[in-house]
């Protein structure tokens, strides 16, 4: 995902120059709240979720309560990748808080505070592995400010110079023996905080710690903040939301994409005990019931006739055949990058060519898609895994026919997402609101997709076909490279369409057009197809296919040149690519590259930059007959300053498992436009017995932090494919591997 500057219709820029940090109004017992905005405009902070409060409760980054808890209000959704823990680490570091004080909650509702700085700052969202990049300065400053206010408050109360006060692990102390917790001083700090801020010049400049004195940032032993809740079954997910009188809805969606309701017969559905209503909504027919099971049974009994005149009827095989026919076509081709003269250079030397096929992939997060909507007392509340809250606020407001400031979003943790909950049309939020509206807003409605809905109702990583051509010169150097990519655009036709420039959707070519290797004649082409299947970003987006095709082809070229794959790559990584070189060298050394392996085993390597992080992996595999085993993966990552090293390791392990499942057996196929795989029995994912041992090495870096949620994914596919080639000679050009016999070519 990419910078989203100016995405929102109204520019928020007008008041920018007057914006600075703010302190919530001093109310006894309210503690200290640090926010950001225009002085005089922001109001006191109140408890989250208070619907009738006259104040905007979310204009804050952190809250220190009299009970000594420090709650960070996180701009980024917790869907497993650890941003709550990361943001709390940033605040606690500068605040000198004790880790046991720290809490986190999802925040939303003010792009001025929560706009993603890695996307330009005007819209809030979680994606593109940007949470730490966007938060690194913002939340440290908030923590540092709160610390300075607590110190000033203590100095005033104790009548001692501020310089003599120490702050350690949440406690302020003075050599005279005076001592107080942050919670004890919070109210006093709030009373003087705004005065301090008004005197600060410039208003947004806050002194921060030198990285050399970080105590929590970089500590591998910090426990995740959601560790206990998620091991005790606590109700943290949207599916766990329970409200008085709440009804549950499931929706019958059209069996083919683009289908519409022609008519429906709800007579049998209404006979199911517990079914309350059956209503048509823009995306299908909803069965609303007292319980989930009654809603599911009601839907089973529902008869819907679909108008499929505008539906997509092509199957996967036909799409693949059509895409292949576009591989050599001259018209309709957009050029993403063009260096030198590829055409001429491909005409000499040793030439190689390969065609790669990639299937549709489902995100299949384990919590099936859902949302809860409730309109009452002039507001509408929506509970969900709100990955793009500003967009969802606008959609909910429109359906509820209320101004946006009458929308209250409750940011629940998401049971996975992998991109799926960052949906430009707010799909489940829109469905939940539409159903609640269709029953006259008479009750809160939980929309719950079943696994079958989640798998068959879209959205998917698109099908792509790539053609790669390259020429090696007489010295075995790569002289020319052409990569043509054929597939659907994720951004075209979405609110993100402005990012499609000169016919190039950057998410279709990322990882290909920025290939790090020095190749004098280099060209990346894109043919965008028009298919009625809804597609979406899927963990690591374009690099899920670009990195695979490029890194597998690079290995084939190294083989053709008679060179070691790592030596071949390093020779093409110039002095301007030190971070690529460093992770590749690190993984070479850590994996024992080149050392003897037991009979029947081989190693493969791959390198990929994604979301400004650099990852290299070496996979060690064996084949028993046609059965592939990935025994071990060694991974080196450079993601800048490592804020939570253990979270980084976990994300590399998880990204590798997620990517490995997909390349081994992940595919959504269409038969005449209908999705064939309906559940985990058809769409098989990685299981325990297939998980390799993953060893992660974090390359030390003083660069600003970058992403870890996605960058672990791209290298694993090509690393495993390259190991298979080393072992059996088989070229893995068709994904998933389950389509091929892996034995010798």
């Amino acid at each position: 995902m990419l910078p989203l500057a100016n995405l929102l219709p109204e520019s928020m820029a007008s008041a920018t120059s007057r914006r600075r940090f703010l302190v919530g109004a001093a109310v006894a017992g309210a503690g200290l709240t640090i926010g950001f905005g225009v002085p005089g405009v922001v109001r006191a902070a109140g408890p989250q979720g208070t619907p009738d409060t006259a104040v905007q409760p979310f204009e804050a980054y952190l809250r220190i309560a009299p009970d000594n808890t420090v709650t960070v209000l996180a701009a980024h959704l917790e869907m497993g990748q650890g941003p709550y823990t990361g943001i709390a680490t940033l605040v606690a570091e500068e605040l000198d808080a004790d880790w046991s004080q720290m809490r986190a909650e999802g925040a939303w509702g003010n792009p001025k505070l929560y706009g993603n700085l890695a996307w330009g700052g005007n819209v809030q969202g979680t994606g593109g592995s940007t949470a730490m990049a966007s938060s690194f300065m913002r939340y440290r400053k908030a923590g540092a400010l709160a610390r300075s206010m607590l110190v000033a408050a203590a100095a005033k109360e104790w009548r001692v110079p501020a310089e003599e006060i120490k702050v350690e692990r949440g406690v302020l102390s003075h050599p005279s023996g005076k001592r107080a917790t942050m919670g004890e001083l919070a109210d006093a700090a709030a009373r003087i905080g705004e005065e301090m801020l008004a005197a600060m010049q410039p208003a947004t400049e806050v002194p921060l710690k030198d990285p050399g004195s970080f105590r929590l940032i970089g500590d591998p032993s910090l426990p995740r903040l959601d560790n206990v809740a998620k091991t005790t079954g606590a109700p943290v997910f949207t599916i766990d939301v329970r409200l008085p009188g709440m009804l549950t809805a499931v929706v019958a969606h059209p069996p083919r994409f683009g289908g519409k309701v022609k008519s429906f017969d709800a007579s049998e559905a209404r006979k199911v005990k517990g079914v309350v209503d059956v209503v048509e909504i823009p995306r299908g027919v909803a069965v609303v019931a007292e319980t989930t099971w009654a809603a599911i049974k009601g839907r089973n009994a529902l008869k819907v006739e679909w108008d499929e005149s505008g539906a997509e009827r092509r199957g996967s095989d036909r799409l693949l055949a059509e895409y292949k026919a576009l591989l050599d076509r001259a018209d309709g081709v957009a050029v993403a990058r063009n260096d030198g003269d590829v055409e001429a250079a491909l005409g000499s030397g040793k030439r190689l060519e390969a065609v790669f096929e990639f299937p549709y992939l489902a995100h299949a997060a384990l919590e099936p898609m859902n949302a809860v909507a409730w309109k009452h007392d002039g507001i509408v509340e929506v509970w969900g895994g709100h990955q793009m809250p500003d967009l969802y606020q606008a959609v909910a407001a429109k359906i509820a026919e209320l101004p946006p400031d009458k929308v209250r979003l409750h940011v629940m943790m998401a049971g996975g997402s992998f991109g799926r909950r960052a949906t430009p049309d707010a799909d489940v939020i829109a469905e939940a609101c539409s159903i609640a509206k269709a029953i006259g807003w008479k009750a809160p409605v939980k929309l719950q997709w079943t696994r079958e809905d989640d798998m068959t109702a879209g959205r998917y990583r698109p099908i792509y076909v790539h053609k790669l051509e390259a020429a090696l010169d007489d010295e075995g150097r790569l002289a020319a490279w052409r990569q043509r990519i054929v597939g659907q655009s994720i951004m075209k036709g979405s609110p993100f369409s402005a990012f499609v420039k000169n016919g190039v959707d950057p998410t279709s070519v990322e990882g290909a057009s920025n290939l790090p290797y020095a190749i004098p004649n280099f060209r990346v082409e894109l043919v965008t197809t028009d298919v009625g299947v809804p597609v979406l970003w899927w963990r690591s987006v374009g690099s899920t296919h670009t990195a695979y095709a490029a890194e597998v082809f690079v290995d084939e070229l190294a083989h053709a040149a008679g060179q070691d794959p790592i030596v071949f790559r390093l020779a093409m990584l110039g002095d301007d690519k030190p971070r690529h070189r460093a992770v590749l060298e690190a993984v070479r050394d850590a994996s024992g590259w080149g050392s003897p392996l037991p009979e029947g085993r081989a190693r493969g390597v791959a390198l990929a930059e994604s979301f400004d992080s650099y990852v290299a992996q070496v996979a060690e595999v064996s084949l028993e007959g046609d059965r592939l085993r990935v025994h071990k993966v060694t991974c080196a990552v450079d993601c800048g300053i490592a804020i939570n090293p253990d979270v980084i390791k976990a994300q590399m392990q998880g990204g590798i498992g997620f990517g490995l499942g997909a390349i081994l057996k992940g595919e959504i196929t269409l038969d005449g436009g209908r999705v064939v795989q309906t559940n985990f029995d058809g769409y098989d994912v990685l299981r325990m017995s297939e998980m390799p041992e993953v060893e992660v090495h974090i390359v030390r870096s003083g660069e600003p932090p970058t992403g870890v949620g996605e960058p672990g994914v791209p290298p694993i596919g090509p690393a495993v494919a390259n190991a298979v080639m080393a072992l059996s000679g088989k070229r893995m050009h068709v994904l998933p591997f389950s389509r091929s016999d892996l034995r010798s070519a």
Partner: protein
Amino acid sequence: MLTLKINGKAVEVDAEPDTPLLWVLRDHLGMTGTKYGCGIAQCGACTVHVDGVATRSCQLPVEGATGVEITTIEGLGGKVGEAVRTAWQKLQVVQCGYCQSGQIMAAAALLAENRKPGDADIDAAMTNICRCATYQRIRAAVHHAAELLEA
């Protein structure tokens, strides 16, 4: 009315007899720690113990769940339960966390039966899906819980 025994307590439930135990726990009793993931016993997010045996509650009609001892994540305790939870927290297993109730229940059932499971035992018993692929840490946590139980 059906009478169930859940986490040591007798509970009266007014539910259609074909309702899966999963939805009785979640919707009728408000015990939301047990998760819905697939509805066809593929993913294991709904794992509970029935007379100590790890069981996928999405495929168990509530009429078949009477007269047995049901344990859910909310009621998981005892030496084994505590060891598993401690190991999970110490090794930082969770990511999104959605599958972890089921993983913990599956691990506790395994350890109750086999105090020293090997990797093959873990592969065979721990077939629950984790889309975050926390498998490496789950495996390590099962081993660690076994060590805690030995100590």
